[in-house]
């Protein structure tokens, strides 16, 4: 179709008008998608109904009746399936969030090491990346679980480190803090301290920018917060937190903080694996920054650290964020491999629910919906952050 002959007063008939056609094409496409989806749904619904398996989510209100190994939120076997599923979701979020933070730190360190001028450091980083990236995650998880975590001594012969911290193949049991009644009161002090500390931090940064003299915002900020914490500690009645030591009682440790071998193995596995990919992303990002920028930084007399912190990294971020987002999503989705090593993540708990109720379609829908929402939320957050980073540059 030629476009040159189309003039304002002679509009083509609608079936030859590209603008109208484009809209029609999209409407048709939408209809096709809806019809296909509706057909598949009704097909499934009828087939299941014919066998007396009416689909529905009513079962979520029933009592679950099974315990879960790790419950970050209160849960007893008397709670509902919905609650049990939520425990699984929280377990997945727990391992994903901690994993993402640690993998990012480790990934940046290795990515920078890969570009180091120190031959040994560079070689180690390269070997690490090549080995980790080129072996399957499932195999690595089995390695961390079976060959590392389960090879610690039996619980009765647990290794005792100062603290005390006990290492056994039941996991790590370590001394931890236990909040007392006055803890909530103290928490108010901590939060107030955080607000004031932020203001002090802002003020000192501003001072530094304005005068060029070092403002030490971090030191001033943390000192303010510590001051609030100390004052609060002495003002509230009694100590707000006490030390809780793990003791071997009967068959297991009681008290303290305990990390199970399943959680530890999954976390270590995911962090080590994802960090290798993040390292490559970081390396690519750093290399994408023009060499002239670095030369200029050198010419200004900045140290290597300052050059990285103030010149190279802010610019590299633009390149790093989008692929980093997909690594975060991968980590979250890969956490479903937890079922192989017995960590009660959402996929594992959902498996038990499916076993008890036989509602395969519904449970799978729930699983997919949960991962989808987690991934979309992560993407949303990272896209927001990406825009923020982009706005900084001119």
């Amino acid at each position, binding site marked *: *179709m030629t476009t040159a002959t189309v003039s304002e007063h002679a509009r083509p008939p609608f079936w030859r008008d590209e603008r109208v*056609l484009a809209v*029609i094409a999209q409407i048709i496409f939408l209809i*096709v998608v809806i*019809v296909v989806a509706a057909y598949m749904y009704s097909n499934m619904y009828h087939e299941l109904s014919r066998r007396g*398996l009416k689909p529905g989510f009513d079962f979520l209100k029933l009592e679950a*009746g099974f315990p*879960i190994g790790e419950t970050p939120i209160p849960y007893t076997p008397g709670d509902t399936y919905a609650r049990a599923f939520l425990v699984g979701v929280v377990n997945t979020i727990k391992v994903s969030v901690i994993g993402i933070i640690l993998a990012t730190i480790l990934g940046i360190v290795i990515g920078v090491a890969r570009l180091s001028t120190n031959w040994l450091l560079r070689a180690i980083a390269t070997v690490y990346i090549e080995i980790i990236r080129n072996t399957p995650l499932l195999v690595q998880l089995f390695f961390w679980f079976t060959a590392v975590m389960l090879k610690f001594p039996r619980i009765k012969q647990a290794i005792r480190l100062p603290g005390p911290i006990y290492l056994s193949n039941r996991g790590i049991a370590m001394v931890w803090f236990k909040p007392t009644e006055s803890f909530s009161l103290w928490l108010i002090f901590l939060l107030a301290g955080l607000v004031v500390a932020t203001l002090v931090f802002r003020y000192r940064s501003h001072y530094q920018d304005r005068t060029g003299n070092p403002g030490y915002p971090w030191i001033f900020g943390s000192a303010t917060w510590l001051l609030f914490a100390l004052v609060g500690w002495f003002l509230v009645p009694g100590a707000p937190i006490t030390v809780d030591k793990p003791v071997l009682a009967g068959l297991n440790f009681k008290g303290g903080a305990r990390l199970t071998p399943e959680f530890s193995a999954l976390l270590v596995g995911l962090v080590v694996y994802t960090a290798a990919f993040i390292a490559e992303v970081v390396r690519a990002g750093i290399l994408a920054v023009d060499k002239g920028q670095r030369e200029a930084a050198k010419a200004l007399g900045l140290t290597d650290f300052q050059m990285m912190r103030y010149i190279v990294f802010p610019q590299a971020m633009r390149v790093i964020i989008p692929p980093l987002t997909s690594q975060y999503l991968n980590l979250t989705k890969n956490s479903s491999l937890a079922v192989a090593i017995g960590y009660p993540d959402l996929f*594992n708990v959902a*498996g038990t629910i499916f076993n008890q109720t036989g509602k395969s379609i519904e449970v799978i829908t729930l699983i997919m919906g949960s991962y989808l929402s987690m991934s979309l939320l992560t993407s949303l957050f990272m896209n927001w952050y990406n825009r923020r980073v982009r706005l900084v540059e001119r």
Partner: protein
Amino acid sequence: MHRKVFILMLGLLVLLVVLGACASGSQEKQLVTMEVTKEVTVIVTKEVPAAAAKSKLDVVMERGKLICGVNANLPGFGYLDQNGQYAGFDIDFCKALAAALFDDPSKVEYRPLTAKERFTAVQTGEVDVLIRNTTWTLSRDTSVGMDFAPTTFYDGQGIMVRKADNIKSLEDLQGATICVSTGTTTELNLADQMRAHGIDYTPVVFETADATFGAYEEGRCDAVTTDKSGLVSRKSLLKNPEEHVILDVTLSKEPLSPAVLQGDSKWLDVVKWVVFATFQAEEFGITSQNVDDFKNSDNPGIRRFLGLEGDLGKGLGLTNDFAYRVIKHVGNYAEIYDRNLGPNTPFNLPRGPNSLWTDGGLLYSPPFR
């Protein structure tokens, strides 16, 4: 270019209008409508009545082999032997079924399934029959969409612990960590029983039995639970079997039964009566060794059973000598049991409830008549 796209879109639109108008019957574009409607009708007629009329039995006969969903990791019941062949108690029932259908016990394709996958495999028709130490329960029989054949093995759930831990009863497991496989009734019974006894425990749930018992052996758990037959079988695989002990408590009834998809009574009948044939043969004293001698028997009951008189097999959609084929190729229940679990095997499981009703057990076949 754009014209082509336009025509394509228009074609799609027409198709949609036609599909939408199928029921109401549009007058315009009669010619196109006729063609497409015909196609749609054909698909519809093919799908609905055919699915209702065609039994799995016909499908299996047409295919020429049976697809059996089995366990590949449970010595004694379903496992790979030294030659890489499937063997075991459950496997023998797959063979018995194939013998009845095709007069050839080797016409079976085995599909190893995990506990979690097994019902989906039946629901989707991936396997014809599930013979994989599966417990018959009400919800599986109804909402999970299974139909169960007679129980081939009456089991009960047990708990295995280390001797050194000095655990004697369920109460001693207070605060214990217990390894369990997902997708099993044992996972559910454990929860029920521990709640009933008011015992707090921490479950560690694994996907496969291998992972479950591996973690137990490494000391991750104080105890491990599954059906007693499974414990006996798994104990034989541990590094030092004598260091472990199976507690003298039974947590549940576990009638292990073959399962087929719900709502196909013709196919269910075949599976049912093949199982009954192995019971009945033991009751008659017919074995794979002496079955040919029984062909000269005057006992009308035995003659009917072996298909020498009457039309019993035809009624099932099989040949009249289906029971003869089962006994000849695979043997009666006692032979299957002894071959896989009896005194000459590492398990040496006493028959217990798995004896004939005439010996005080639970195996009882309705009459072949």
